[in-house]
């Protein structure tokens, strides 16, 4: 029988009675994991209680004020690596990886995208060739955030170039400390580097780092990608919040910038931001009512387009101030900083919103086919061996 809210609450209380939140942070977190109170829907022994996923909210509330894990740094580990390891890992792999992943002792990154394989991920060219009990990996990955402080990476590589592209892939855990792994910051048009390029040259990975069967990498990767957080979380909840709020605040504070032309465009964008926010609220209500709708697919599209239009208007309306930029220094950063940086940065960074995490073109395809049921286009690559595909 599944655990109920009351029982979970009691477990937390019992745990807190025995562990001082003011003590050593890491010890507290390890103990919380071992007590099955890390992610309650995971199995017992792996940080969970096999409880319904919704009860996690209860647990989080009860743990308010205690040492917390770092959701920012651990995004890839928690959101992508963990569910994949749980679904496809051996007992040894689950036992080895999940605990330090959750406590944050080991940071994870994602090694999927390649310069030649963006939207068409399945054409990726990084090779993994078997050599006894090891695999030798050669290739280049890109858009890897956090690679420079990662212990492990989830990696998809081509193990068989002679079969159609989806069938020749295998999924690995990549040891980011292994010889031949080189991480280089990738400078973006904003001037800073949120991401890295990762060069893999003769990297040897033991076969015990393989996740799932040889040739089954595409299916394993789907599990990872399905767990990528839906973009809806990123939308503003308050009316007039988010990017529109930034622009509206400037508008209100600086009457000298106003023109009728800008006013008309601002009003349109304010309305669009508001109806998009309402659609997000409605989606959350649907989820809460157990009626998940297809609307989620569209939220990322909407926010990308809104962020771009609003940040563009922001730069334009500031006139001579818009001709300046806050800082071109080449340095690493760990996240998007729409609220701390200047309008020029926001304008440039928002351009990535319609590319990263699924381009707007791919998202429109998905809406058209999966939501609207429109037929797919003629495919030319379905039954062709990967090595014969035009590139």
């Amino acid at each position, binding site marked *: 029988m599944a655990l109920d809210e009351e029982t979970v609450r009691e477990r937390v209380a019992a745990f807190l009675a025995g562990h001082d939140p003011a003590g050593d942070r890491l010890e507290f977190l390890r103990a919380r994991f071992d007590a099955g109170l890390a992610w309650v829907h995971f199995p017992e022994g792996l940080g969970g209680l096999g409880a319904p996923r919704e009860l996690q909210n209860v647990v989080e509330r009860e743990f308010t004020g205690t040492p917390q894990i770092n959701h920012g740094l651990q995004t890839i580990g928690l959101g992508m690596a963990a569910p994949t390891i749980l679904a496809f890992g051996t007992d040894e792999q689950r036992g080895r990886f999940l605990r330090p992943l959750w406590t944050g002792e080991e940071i994870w990154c994602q090694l999927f995208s390649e310069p030649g394989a963006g939207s068409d991920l399945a054409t990726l060219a990084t090779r993994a060739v078997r050599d006894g009990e090891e695999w030798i990996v050669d290739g280049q990955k890109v858009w890897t955030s956090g690679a420079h402080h990662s212990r492990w990476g989830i990696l998809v590589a081509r193990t068989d170039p002679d079969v159609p592209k989806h069938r020749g892939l295998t999924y690995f855990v990549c040891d980011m400390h292994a010889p031949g792994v080189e991480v280089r910051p990738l400078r973006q048009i904003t001037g800073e580097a949120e991401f890295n390029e990762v060069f893999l040259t003769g990297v040897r990975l033991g076969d015990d780092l393989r996740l799932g069967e040889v040739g089954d990498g595409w299916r394993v990767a789907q599990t990872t990608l399905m767990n990528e957080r839906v973009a809806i979380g990123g939308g503003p909840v308050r009316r007039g919040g988010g990017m529109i709020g930034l622009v509206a605040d400037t508008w209100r504070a600086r009457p000298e910038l106003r023109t009728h032309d800008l006013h008309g465009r601002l009003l349109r964008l304010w309305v669009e931001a508001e*109806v998009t926010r309402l659609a997000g609220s409605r989606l959350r209500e649907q989820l809460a009512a157990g009626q998940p709708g297809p609307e989620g697919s569209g939220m990322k*599209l909407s926010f990308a387009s809104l962020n771009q239009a609003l940040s563009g208007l922001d730069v334009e309306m500031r006139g001579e101030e818009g001709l300046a930029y806050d800082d071109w220094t080449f340095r690493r950063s760990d996240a998007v900083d729409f609220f701390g940086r200047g309008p020029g940065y926001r304008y440039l960074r928002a351009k990535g919103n319609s590319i990263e995490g699924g381009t707007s073109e791919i998202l*429109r395809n998905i809406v058209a086919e999966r939501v609207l049921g429109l037929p797919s286009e003629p495919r030319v690559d379905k039954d062709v061996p990967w090595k014969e595909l035009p590139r």
Partner: protein
Amino acid sequence: MTLLYTEIEEDLRASVRDLLADRCGPGVVLRRVESATPYDAELWKTLAQEIGVAGLLVPEEHGGAGASARETAVVLEELGRAVAPLPFLTSSVLAVSALLGSGDGLLGALAAGEATAALVVPFAVSPYRFAETATVRDGVLSGQVRAVAGADVADVLLVPAGGGLYAVDAADATVEVVPSLDLTRPIATVTLSSAPGRRIEGADGGDVRRALLTGAGLLASEQLGVAEWCLNTTLAYIKERHQFARPVGSFQAIKHRMADLWLDVVRARAAARNAAHLLAGATGPAVGGDERDGQDERDGRDGQDGRDTELAVAVAKSWCSEVALRVAEESVQLHGGIGMTWEHPVHLYLKRAKAGEIALGTPGVHRDAVAVLADLPGPVA
């Protein structure tokens, strides 16, 4: 549950949709608009009396169903989806709303579907800029009002004059229907030449403005219905229609346009629901107390609720007007030649959408209201 549909609302929708599917299909509507009487009086009787939609907004003590703007909005979605030539918006929404504050006895007859009424204002007027065009002297009304919707099938005309509201028997006025862009909701010129009127006790210009606000906010739901019919009909067509040995709907440029339109409609639904919810007089804000910004919280409770509602209406009407029109226009385009013919019903929706853009305030007029309500002032002169 605020932006979703309740079970009661879904049941109501099903009843209305079944009836309309049965008696108000596209072929029927096309034939009706070519006849002398586009309005379908028989169908209206069934809808008003048997399903009881005419009294949705009327409180029970006046013989109505005591429902709210939420249920009314669902009916409008269905009527929009059918471009039904029925006086629901004009009589059961606009005229009823103008009478609600007064509790006038006429409400009972309207709720029972025994009479229909029309508010004698230009259909293009916005809630923000209403001005009387008729005059009253000793209970006798004179004046001319153009572009009145629903007057042609009204038994009673509600005429704003002298700061009050007057009920005039339609037989005492001249109602001249003019060729109308929207074939399914024609407009008329109402001329009053010393027509006897009964003053509605307790109703004034404020009631008229509130009725126009309610009408504009709920028209958004009708526009949602128009947009949904156009989107779904176009989807069905482009899945079937082949060109170059492929379904038209398999061409990527078309797919991407449909995806964008769908996203517009998804947001139109949220906006229309939000307006209906707030017009229903919900005491809390539409989407949870945590979502109010600081500015709003500083305002007083009552004033704030009114302002939230007005803002929701302005947002919904401006967005849904443009979405309905865009989807209808794309629908004509994607139907190709057949979409330009009289025999295909899509033009009825295009005309409804274009007229709806103007009705009860254009999108631009409602955005000007947003400027005031959301504190986004224009340039200092």
